[in-house]
């Protein structure tokens, strides 16, 4: 490996440091909304630029690592002591996609804030929490150390608790309380996994641990892997551990739900990819993961069919499509991993876009319940913004959802085992059912006349005085029904465009994910980057 220029370590720490410092600044400048907004947008732009540079560098020159503290060089035989941050192609890709999402959503939220006149509120806590969330997400992708991963999970969880319970309406407190408890239990399971891993290997550095785990008996390894998988599975909402998600996400404000849906579960998926490829290669848990993936897909999408609120419906499709990523990971092949990485990128963009569009629908029609919606086709811009990501999610060619699904199906077919074929069939069924769900939203919400909706006449009325302590979050935005602020439409359109980029440049991007998959499948590259030449 060529020696690193001295500015690369600085670059790697930027995605964590800049948002944290910016969060402090936004708190200090709480009196001036304009100042807060410009700091937040500026900080996330800086992170976005740094991520793009990292993506370019890793693509051109391979994996980089920096050990903050760096006491490893001074004669300690155990290698690096300090906080290791590693960026490889997978991490860099996740960073870039995440920061696109974070940037668009913050612009959307600022647009909504300007429209709603939140500048009258004394201290806005939304932007500081949002920046902390950004720092947590970015740090999770960069963490080269199991404990650092735990801390970044906690950072992003703490921020998400605040964001989820913004305003503390009864609905949000109820949803937030169960979300806090489930998240904390998963963190405790993760922490006990860390304790076991530390007891087994005597290190928490991922690269070092990977080397030492090779000498650990199979039973112990599998037990460790299982504990970590349960912890990550709760965060990623893999089937038996997914029931918390549809109860928690839909009550939050639209931008918050959008960023949660796009990023938080994907952090869990990313952690599963890392653990699966780096720490526990060999696929000892693949059968379990494949079955969990199948059940996640099917049960998630069946849940979506039963819903009448678009936000809840989308939350269920979110759970369902996590199954695709688990499928790709569990195939344990280079193609499977590559397809899973592409699918993660696609799904982050599309799912976030759909939730942003639902925010616009609520604003336009005063509700997100299919029992009340109708006639949205009269706003062609909104219809277009919904239709493209909806078709994309359903996997209609030529959109990226189709490409990702075909790549997954090919990888499954290459695997050739009976279980893999069952999953291939399952994912086709899920894809069709997703299309059905999306078509239902389209026909009910957009195509039919509003008067035909069972409660359409209610939504056409002004906000009912009876619903002052609103149980229906959709009514929060009622003061501004019928408008689509340009500050919210543009970020949504940009997100739709970003989803299309995955289609237009599918060739190069698939090539990139192939290389990323090859790199993470070969653990030596990662270990060499962290531990130096004598990786093993």
């Amino acid at each position, binding site marked *: 490996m060529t020696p690193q220029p001295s500015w690369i370590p600085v670059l790697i720490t930027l995605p964590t440091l800049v948002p944290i410092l910016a969060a402090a600044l936004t708190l200090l400048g709480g009196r001036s909304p304009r100042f807060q907004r410009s700091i937040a947008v500026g900080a996330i732009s800086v992170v976005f630029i740094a991520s793009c540079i990292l993506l370019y560098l890793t693509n051109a020159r391979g994996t980089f690592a920096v050990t903050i503290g760096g006491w490893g060089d001074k004669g300690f035989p155990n290698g690096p002591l300090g906080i290791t941050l590693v960026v490889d192609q997978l991490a860099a890709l996740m960073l870039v996609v995440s920061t696109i999402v974070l940037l668009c959503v913050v612009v959307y939220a600022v647009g909504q804030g300007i429209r709603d006149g939140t500048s009258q509120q004394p201290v806005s806590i939304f932007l500081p929490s949002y920046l902390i969330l950004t720092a947590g997400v970015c740090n999770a992708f960069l963490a080269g150390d199991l*404990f650092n991963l735990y*801390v970044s999970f906690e950072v992003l969880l703490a921020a998400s608790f605040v964001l989820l319970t913004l305003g503390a309406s*009864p609905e949000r407190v109820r949803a937030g309380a169960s979300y806090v408890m489930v998240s904390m239990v998963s963190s405790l399971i993760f*922490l006990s996994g860390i304790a076991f891993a*530390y007891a087994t290997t005597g290190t928490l550095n991922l690269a070092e641990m990977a080397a030492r785990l090779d000498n650990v008996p199979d039973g112990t390894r599998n037990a460790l892997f299982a504990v970590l998988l349960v912890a990550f599975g709760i965060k990623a909402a893999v089937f038996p551990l997914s029931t918390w998600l549809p109860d928690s996400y839909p009550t939050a404000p639209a931008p918050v739900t959008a960023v949660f849906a796009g990023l938080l579960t994907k952090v869990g998926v990313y952690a599963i990819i890392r653990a699966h490829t780096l720490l526990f290669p060999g696929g000892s848990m693949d059968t379990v993961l494949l079955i969990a993936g199948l059940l996640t897909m099917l049960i998630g999408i069946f849940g979506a069919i039963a*819903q009448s609120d678009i936000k809840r419906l989308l939350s269920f499709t979110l759970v369902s499509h996590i199954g695709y990523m688990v499928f790709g990971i569990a195939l344990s092949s280079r193609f499977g991993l590559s397809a899973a990485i592409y699918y993660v990128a696609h799904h982050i963009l599309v799912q976030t876009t759909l939730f942003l569009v639902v925010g616009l629908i609520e604003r336009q029609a005063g509700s997100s319940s*299919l029992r009340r919606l109708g006639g949205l086709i009269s706003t062609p811009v909104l219809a277009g913004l919904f239709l493209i990501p909806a078709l994309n999610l359903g996997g209609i060619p030529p959109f990226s959802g189709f490409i990702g699904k075909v790549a997954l199906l090919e990888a499954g077919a290459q695997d050739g085992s009976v279980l893999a074929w069952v999953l291939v069939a399952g994912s086709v069924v899920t894809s069709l059912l997703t299309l059905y769900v999306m078509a239902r939203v389209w026909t009910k919400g957009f195509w039919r006349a509003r008067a035909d909706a*069972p409660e359409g006449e209610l939504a056409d009325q002004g906000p*009912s005085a*009876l619903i002052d302590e609103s149980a229906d979050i959709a009514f929060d935005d009622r003061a501004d029904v019928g408008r689509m602020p340009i500050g919210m439409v543009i970020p949504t359109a940009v997100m739709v465009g970003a989803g299309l980029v995955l289609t237009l440049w599918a060739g190069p991007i698939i090539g990139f994910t192939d290389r990323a998959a090859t790199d993470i499948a070969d653990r030596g590259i990662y270990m060499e980057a962290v531990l130096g030449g004598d990786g093993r």
Partner: protein
Amino acid sequence: MSVNLGLLIVIGVLAACGAYLLMERSLIRMLFGLLLCGNAINLLILVVSGGMGNPPIMGRSSESRASDADPLAQAMILTAIVITMGVAAFVLSLVYRLFVINRDDDDLEDDTEDVKILSGSLDTAPDRDRTDDPITLADTAAGDLYDDEGNPITPEEFAARHAEMIETDLMPEDADVIDENVRDNDSAISVSRPEDGGSR
């Protein structure tokens, strides 16, 4: 390495009590469960990191200790304690808020949408806006104007059938108002409207 059995038992008891408390409905008990489990796991990290040893400070040593103590485990425990404390503070504020909202307890309630689906029937199913014509199976503009055998019913009969129906995703006050409007129009029975704001 030798393992401290006493501490292991303490860990087991703490974790068991914590898990038991986490199963409760009351948020404050869940918080206690969380704290107990957190402490159990912190102890676990301490136990698995090895026995006592020399303090990890250059030039310091204790009598008859062969090796150094592991400072990393203690650093991790400290971090975990701080994180748990922060979350506990947040949960306490949630508990307070839940007290304010519920007035008398801090129990978590079931998700309203889940309850709706669990207790739902064909009448309350999502999007049952138009009934299929029982013969042609086509959507009809008449709406739900068929009885269980598929015979058409008049709007009066429909209103009578649905007078008791509760629209689960509406506030009950709203549903009452709508039903009364229907009754007002159709059968000219004058019903006194509930006071605005409903009775909470």
